[in-house]
């Protein structure tokens, strides 16, 4: 196999054009690939269609930086701090630009991505009947179950152009191990046209093959592998580093105004060349978040 390992810069340059639909943050609160989101901002991607359940503040940053035209999500906010200011400004005032939102619930977006992964046109559900979400989303259909006559909602498949998932370890072909909750990561990776794996550690194929049940996506579905330690900060990566709660709260306080948002992006994204520089800027704070993990090893049963 030829190695697929590349830099974050090259992965974004080659695989994420303007206008692409991009799924990220698919494990919900953990393993959000902030390093990928920041590179999208640095490369000034435009008109992206963001797809993801929760995303914590990653979507807020991309929206505020003007990268986004459409959002398909269940929740856009700051989980431990409250509302997302940039998202509010975009929706309430069209700043920096108006965006289209296709409302989802966590279940409906999981079903849409599962349908995409299965090659099914839609999945039928009883969830959200009587909610205003179907009307606001605009892509669902009401139907009746041909078996029982009961009311159903049909959730059409979502097939992202690109899915970015962060994992603890992968080999050079992209066979990737993720532990901790998977959220909708596997569906999103299997549904996508191109999947970018962002690995905290690159390991030998033999480490992956010692425990193939832990593989979230096989290399054959992976387009690029980025070796990027600490890619998820301030979100956590199980066994590697903890969530930086205070960072989320500081972001919340700092981005209340457009000026504050711009300053935050300058400080933490535009004027930071890459993730290595970002971690260096975090300094001792980063060291304190790291878990004393055990090095990657063959699984033994």
């Amino acid at each position, binding site marked *: 196999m030829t190695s697929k390992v590349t830099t974050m810069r090259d992965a974004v340059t080659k695989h994420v054009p303007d206008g692409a639909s991009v799924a990220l943050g698919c494990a*919900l609160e953990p393993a959000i690939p902030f390093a990928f989101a920041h590179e999208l901002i640095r490369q000034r991607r435009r008109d992206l269609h963001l797809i993801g359940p929760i995303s914590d503040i990653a979507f807020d940053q991309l929206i505020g930086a003007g990268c986004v035209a459409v959002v398909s999500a*269940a929740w856009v906010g700051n989980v431990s701090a409250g509302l997302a200011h940039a998202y509010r400004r975009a929706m309430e005032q069209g700043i920096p630009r108006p965006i289209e939102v296709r409302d989802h619930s966590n*279940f409906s977006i999981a079903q849409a991505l599962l349908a995409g992964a299965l090659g099914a046109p839609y999945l039928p559900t009883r969830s959200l009947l009587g909610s205003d979400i179907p009307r*606001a989303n605009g892509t669902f259909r009401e139907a009746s179950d041909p078996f029982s006559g009961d*009311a159903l909602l049909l959730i059409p498949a979502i097939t992202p152009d690109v899915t970015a998932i962060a994992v603890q370890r992968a080999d050079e072909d992209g066979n990737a191990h993720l532990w901790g*909750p*998977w959220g*909708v990561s596997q569906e999103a990776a299997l549904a996508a046209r191109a999947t970018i794996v962002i690995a905290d550690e690159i390991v030998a194929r033999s480490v992956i093959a010692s425990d193939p049940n832990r593989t979230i996506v096989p290399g054959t579905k992976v387009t690029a592998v980025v070796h990027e330690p600490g890619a998820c900060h301030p979100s956590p990566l*199980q*066994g590697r580093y903890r969530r930086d709660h205070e960072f989320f709260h500081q972001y919340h306080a700092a981005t209340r105004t457009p000026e504050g948002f711009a300053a935050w992006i300058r400080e933490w994204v535009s004027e930071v060349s890459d993730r290595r520089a970002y971690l260096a800027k975090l300094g001792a704070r980063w060291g304190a978040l790291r878990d004393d993990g055990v090095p990657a090893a063959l699984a033994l049963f």
Partner: protein
Amino acid sequence: MVAQAAREIRDGERVFVGMRLPLIAFVVAKRTHAPNAIGLFELGVVRDEPAPELLYTMGDNANVAGAVWCARTIDLMGMLQRGDVHAGFIGGAEIDVHGNLNTTAIGDRGHPKVQLPGSGGGADIASLAHRLIVIMPHDRRRLREKVDFVTSPGHGDGRGWRKRAGLPRGGPSVLITTLAVFRFVDGSAVLESAHPGVSVERIRNETGWPLAVAAALRETEPPSTEVLSIIRGYDPQGFWTRRGE
């Protein structure tokens, strides 16, 4: 609120715990009357023991380590839709007398006055759990005659609505606020108890719908010293429990 929320969890039940205060209610319930309750977290975590430290999100490492199942969102949502989840917690920005909740937008969805984060898993829990437990700050602007957007369906326009809408079960069972506890009877909220020191008049003034009061109105049972000590031990800085939530 946390103490009352904990009381709503019965022993042995499977509960969608969500985040913030319900996380602490789950801890209280497990350590008191419901040692066999199971906590389900929609990102894909199932626990039979609460996490040993304060959680800021359900995805904190401490909520994953020691879980009995790390799964996918679809697995847990499948259990919910299948009818395997007894109860779930959600909050909201606005609620109406029938328990319909808005966490999407104040004002018009297209041009919102206040853009809220959205459903998360709330609308699914409201649609599919056997019993919904709602926790909210008590405020006339939040307890409204009609909400601007129904994110999470409650009892719609009242009794029988859920069945007509095609929802398979459930609906709000209780609304716990900073002032009172409402029980849903025939699809409408009835004041069941007022928190110690809170008058019915104050509750009426702070509630946006015509108040229905239970014949057997009582005072909300205050948290025991044991429960208070569990809450304070779990959230010593009061990160979640001091905000008046």
